[in-house]
C-alpha cells in the first residue's frame, strides 16, 4: 500500500533519477527531509547540488526556480506550507506566469506544498490558495485526491513546460493508502478530470480532499435515497476539463460543486460559469455550491469543523437538488 505522501515522494524520486535536470529547492528540504518528510533521503541520494536548502525567502526561491527553468533545468520548489506561497505571489504572478507570453522563453517549474484544513493548524497553515491564482493566465494548477493521481500528476507537472502549482492536501498525506500498479508507468496528463464514481442522478464536481467527503455523501444517498451520484474529480483546475464536466451534466442535469476553500470568489464560480455557458439547456436545477464559510480558517476544533464543508452539508445540498 502506498500513501498519498509516499506517492508524491516516489514521483519526485523517479523524476530525479530519470532526468538530472530535475532538482529540489525549499526550506529544510535537505538534511531534515522537509517539514512533512517528503524529501527524506533525497539529500543522501542526490546530493546538496540537487536538493537545495534555502533561506526563508519564498520570493527568492521561486525566482531562482524561474531562472533555472530558463536554463533548461526542471526545478521543483517546496513551500513548507502552501500558505507561504503568499510572499512569492508577485514572483509567480508577474514573472513566472507572464514570461513566456512576454519573451517566448518559458519557465517550466513546479511549486508544491501542503494545503488544506482539518489539521487544527489555524489560519496560516490551513489555506487553500487556488483562487488567488485562478485568474492568472500562464499558470497551471493541480490538486490530486488519490495517491495514483498525486504521483501521476506530479510527474506530468515536472515534465510540463509551463509553471505548475501543485496543491497536495495535508489531510490526505497519511490517510490515503492505495495499491499502485507495479507494471504501468504512472503518468496522469494535466487537464484531464477523473470519473471518481459513476452515477446518473446528480453530478458532484470537486477536487482534493473533498472528493472523499463527496464519496461519503454519495454512498449515504445511494443507501438511504437510492439515487446514484456521479462524482467528477477535476484533478487539474487549470486547464479545466470542461468536456468531462459537461458530459456528466448532460447526463444528470443536476450539478453540485464542492470545494474546501471559502465560497465567495472560490473556484466553484468558474466551474458554474462554464457549465452555464456550455450546458445551460441540460440543467434541471440550479447549480449549487458547498464550500467553507467566508471566513479565515479558525484554529479551535469546533470552529474549524463548522468552517469546513462537511459530508452533512453535501447530503443536504444533494437532497435539495434531487428533490428540485
Amino acid at each position, binding site marked *: 500500500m502506498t500513501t498519498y505522501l509516499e506517492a508524491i515522494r516516489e514521483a519526485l524520486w523517479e523524476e530525479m533519477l530519470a532526468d538530472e535536470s530535475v532538482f529540489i529547492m525549499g526550506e529544510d528540504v535537505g538534511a531534515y527531509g522537509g517539514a512533512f518528510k517528503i524529501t527524506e533521503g533525497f539529500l543522501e541520494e542526490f546530493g546538496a547540488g540537487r536538493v537545495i*536548502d534555502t*533561506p526563508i525567502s519564498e520570493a527568492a526561491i521561486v525566482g531562482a526556480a524561474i531562472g533555472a527553468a530558463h536554463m533548461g533545468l526542471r526545478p521543483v520548489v517546496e513551500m513548507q506550507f502552501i500558505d507561504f506561497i503568499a*510572499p512569492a505571489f508577485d514572483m509567480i504572478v508577474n514573472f513566472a506566469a507572464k514570461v513566456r507570453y512576454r519573451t517566448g522563453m518559458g519557465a517550466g517549474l513546479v511549486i508544491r506544498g501542503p494545503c488544506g484544513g482539518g489539521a487544527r493548524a489555524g489560519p496560516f*497553515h490551513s489555506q487553500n490558495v487556488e483562487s488567488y491564482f485562478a485568474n492568472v493566465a500562464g499558470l497551471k494548477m493541480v490538486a490530486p485526491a488519490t495517491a495514483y493521481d498525486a504521483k501521476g500528476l506530479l510527474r506530468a507537472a515536472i515534465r510540463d513546460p509551463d509553471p505548475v502549482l501543485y496543491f497536495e492536501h495535508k489531510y490526505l498525506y497519511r490517510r490515503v493508502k492505495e495499491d499502485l500498479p507495479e507494471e504501468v508507468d504512472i503518468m496522469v496528463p494535466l487537464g484531464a478530470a477523473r470519473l471518481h464514481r459513476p452515477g446518473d442522478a446528480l453530478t458532484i464536481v470537486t477536487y482534493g480532499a473533498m472528493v472523499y467527503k463527496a464519496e461519503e455523501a454519495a454512498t449515504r444517498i445511494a443507501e438511504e435515497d437510492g439515487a446514484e451520484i456521479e462524482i467528477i474529480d477535476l484533478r487539474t483546475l487549470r486547464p479545466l476539463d470542461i468536456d468531462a464536466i459537461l458530459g456528466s451534466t448532460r447526463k444528470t442535469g443536476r450539478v453540485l460543486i464542492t470545494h474546501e476553500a471559502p465560497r465567495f470568489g472560490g473556484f466553484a464560480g468558474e466551474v458554474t460559469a462554464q457549465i452555464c455557458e456550455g450546458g445551460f439547456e441540460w440543467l434541471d436545477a440550479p447549480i449549487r455550491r458547498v464550500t467553507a464559510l467566508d471566513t479565515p480558517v479558525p*484554529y479551535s476544533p469546533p470552529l474549524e469543523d463548522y468552517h469546513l464543508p462537511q459530508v452533512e452539508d453535501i447530503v443536504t445540498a444533494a437532497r435539495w437538488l434531487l428533490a428540485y
Partner: protein
Amino acid sequence: MPAGPASVGPLFSLALGVQALCGYGMPDGSLTADDLRSLLRFMLLTRGLEERLERLLKQGEVFGSLYRSLGQEATPVGSAFALQEGDWLAPSFRDLGALLVRGLPLRDAFLQYMGRTGYAGEGRDGTNPPTVPHLGLLGPVSSLGTQLCALNGVALAFRMRGEPRVCMTYQGEGATRTGASHEGFAFAAVQRLPMVVVLEHNRWSFSTRSSAQAAVESWSDVAKAYGVPAISVDGNDVLAVYDAAVEAVVRARAGGGPTILVAETFRMLGHAQHDARAYVPEAELERWRKRDPIDGFERYLREHDFETETGLTALRDEVNRELDRALEDALAQPLPAPADASTRVYAEPESGIPPWTRTDPIGYTDLAQRPPATPTPGAAAGADQSDGFLR
C-alpha cells in the same frame, strides 16, 4: 470620528488594572531587588507555562503543534522588562515570556493555545501568541517578518500623536531573510521610528543553521544596511539583555530611532513539538545546557545574596501554584460554540450573506421577502445618484 477600529489610546488605561502582574524596571534602567526577583519569576513562569502547554498538547487539549523557548527565556523577558506602560510589543511565535512581562494573564495564555473562549482570541488563532490591545500586545501572523511591518504603523501613530511611546518586536535570524523583514527594517530606519527589534539569534531556524541563512560574520551586520545602531548581547544573560534593551528603548523614546538588539542564544528543543532536532550535534547542546538562563540567573542571585535557596524554592512553588491555578481557570472555560466561527469577519453589521449550508438550502431568505424585482431606477452617470440602489 465614526465608529471604527478600536482606538487603543483610551483603552490603554485598563492596563493599570493588570499592573500587579505586568513587570517593568525604572525608565533609567535601575533595578530593585524586587525587580531581580520579578525577572526570575517571569522566566520561571515562561518555562512552567510552556511545560504545561506541552503536556496539554500531548493530552489533546492544545492542538496542532507548539513552539517552545526553552533556553531562550532570558531574551524575551529581559527585553520586554525594559518597556514602560503605554509601550507596544509584537512578539514572534517563541516569545511568550515577553507577553507575560507585559501583563498577559496566564489564564489567557492557556486559553489562546487551548482554543477556548473567554478572552479576546476566542479560539480563532492558537498557532500564534494573542493580541491584547489594552496591554499593547500585537500578536504576529505566521508569515515571518510581517509583524515588524505592522508594528511600524503603531510606532508611526505614536510619533504622529507626539506620544513618547516605544515599540518592541522580535525576529528570529531566519525571519530576517524575508522580504517583509527587510521592508520593515528599512521603513523603520528611514522614518526613524521609536522601534526596538530584538533579533533572536538562536543558531537554528527549523533545521537550518544560521550560517546557511546568511553569509554574515555577525548578525549585527544586518543593522549596517539600514544605518541603525546594533547592540549584541548574551541572550542568556537576562540582566545583559535588560541593560541593552534599556539603552535601545531610551534612545527610541528620545527620538533617536530604531535599534537592532542581537541576542545570542540557542534553541534547546526542536523547532516544534514534532521535531526531535536530530540534526543538532549533542556537543553543541551540551555547551549551551551549561548556559541555561534560569540556572545562571539563580546562581547570580544566590552569589550576590539577593536570594537564598529557600527563597528560590518558595518562589518556584509560588510560580507553580500560580500556573496550576491559571490552568484550572482555563480548563473551566468552554470551547467556542461552532456557529461562532461565522462571526467577526467584518465589523458589525456583518457584511455579505450567511453561508447557505447553515441557513436555508438556496442560501437566501425566502425570495418573496426580496426587494422589488424592478429596482427603483437610479440616475445615469453624472447625475445625482442618491435615489439609486443606495440602501
